[in-house]
């Protein structure tokens, strides 16, 4: 399969993840969308690693996965903290930054 196929697939998954981030009400749902976006990025990286015979892509992917895991942990901890404070995690209700 040519490189573009993988890249287009990754773009598609990215777009789907973006859609999820934009439309989900629940904060955890938003986080799932972010996961998908990161996944798509990983697909991109590995494709390039393959098609350029460059192992740096793989290293980068590993880093990304590790960091994503850390980010998910912290993010969900924040969500739990918010839930404790406000008894809701619906993004619509978290508008303290409103101008």
């Amino acid at each position: 399969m040519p490189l573009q196929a993988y890249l287009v697939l990754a773009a598609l998954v990215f777009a789907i993840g973006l859609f999820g981030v934009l439309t989900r009400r629940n904060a955890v749902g938003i986080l799932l969308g972010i996961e998908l976006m990161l996944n798509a990025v990983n697909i991109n990286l590995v494709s390039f690693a393959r098609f350029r015979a460059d192992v740096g892509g793989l290293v980068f992917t590993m880093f990304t996965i590790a960091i994503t895991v850390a980010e998910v942990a912290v993010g969900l901890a924040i969500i739990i903290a918010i839930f404790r404070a406000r008894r809701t995690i619906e993004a619509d209700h978290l508008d303290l930054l409103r101008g």
Partner: protein
Amino acid sequence: MLLGSPTLALVVLALPAASFLLIGLIRPLRRRGRGAAAVSIAAMGAALAVAVAMWQRARPVLDGPPPNPSATWSWLPADGGPMATVGVMVDGLPLAMCVLVTFISFLVQVYSYAYLHDEPAPSLGRYYAYQSLFAFSMLGLVLAPGFLQMFVFWELVGLCSYLLIGFWYDRPSAARAAVKAFWITKLGDLGFVAGIAMLWAATGTFDFWTLFGMVDAGTLAAVAGLPTIMFLIYLGAVGKSAQFPLHVWLPDAMEGPTPVSALIHAATMVTAGVYMVARAFPLFALAPDVLTLVAWVGAGTALLAATMACVEADIKRVLAYSTVSQLGYMMAAAGAGDPQASVSHLLTHGVFKALLFLGAGVVIHVFHTNDMFRMGGLFGRLPWTGVAFLVATLALAGIPPFPGFFSKEAILGAVLDGGFTGPFVLLAVTSFLTAFYMFRAVFLVFFGRPQAHADAHVPLAMDGVCRLLAAVTVIYGLVLAFRAHHGEAPAWLPWASMLVAVAGIALAWAMYQRGAIEPARLASALAPVDFMARRRYGLDALYAGLYRGVLLALSALVGWVDRYLVDGVLNVLSAASLRAGDTLRRLQTGQPQDYVYGVAFGVLLLLVWAHVGSR
């Protein structure tokens, strides 16, 4: 021509200036009142002595071309010689004026010391500061060698007039009168300064001597628009010397203390206009139409003011209108082509009008009122005051051997000689009225039934000054009687003028002393004149209405512009910012996903840009 010493002239100028600076700057001195008075009177006395000495030592230049009588120093530098100079001009005219100004100023300052006895000390100090400043300004004006310096001192004199008229500034009427005097004379000054500027633009100089030289050489006559220029310059005199229609400030100026009226509204400041016309007469002679106007306006003013004096009850107002009338006489003489007659009357009038005002001050002090109908019988109580007043009144009415007769006759002769029969008739009628209203005043105040309340104690300073002035008047009259007069006037003129004056006195005697003719009946017989005279011919009302109308309209306009345009612009700007802010605020929803929308949109834009850029 007479030539004096510039050095002495500078000393005369410097003495009151020094007095003013001392009193003005040293606050403890001013606050002490009497100390300030002492400084000012001493300076004035010294100035008088120097002025008299200067006059005595002036030597006439008989043969050869007349030298330049001015001594000047450069003031405003410019390429090719200074643009303006300051200095002194010491020929005959300024010398005589110096003596008059210093003499009357000195007497008035001495008189004021007693008249303002009840004034609190700091106020008295302020008064003497103003008096010194005025003396300095007036001397600077008469000694000016050119139009620019004259104008500067002209304005300074106007300022002093404002300060002194409004001396009792907590009286609303005095404050109003001071402002009115300032405004009305300012109207004339507008013309004056325009004329001076135009003259300078045409000739390149302010200096009198240079201008006189240009007149002799014939180059000045070639200046285009010279009549217009001279008319504008004359306007300054109209304002300052209270010619119609800018005469309305002088009667109101009586709100000031009586010695002030004697000094500046009889003898010195108001004569500045006449002085200016006489000084610049060679220039005026090149504009005969302007001179004709001067003569007619002068004669008209004389008659107008005389009619208004006939119906006044306030003694100071009678004298004020009398001053306006006599100023008209002086201007008429100048307009007829004889500035010497004009100046001669200026000098005699200065002496006896000052005496009249100071005498009126005594009268007011005695009766505690200005209203003549509440006075009477003073001659019995204060005979010497009565005599002094009578001397001055006879001088004003034009009875020989008092000085007024000679100077008035010179004026009438000049007017007749110049062929101005219309003004001559007006002036003749005015002579009749002058004698009438002055003796009306005399009969009402000094004769008739004595009033109950009268404080017959007169301070020595006031009384002594009056007696001294009376003596000077008499001596002056005798000097004039013996001096050789250029007798071009017809032989019937002195007799005719005497007859007219006696007729006026007789009418006043008949009406007010004998009661033979009822004043009310005469007034109703001359109803239209009486009506207009009592309302001052509507001029005051006209000016007030114009002033108010113009000022209010202008203020309303400016206010509208300020509120709707200036503030409006600001309000619109601020409202627009607020509204823009409110609109933009809706972007900050606080919803995190909306911000993600923003980020995604930005990414989209970047993609589009990269797309476009890569083509």
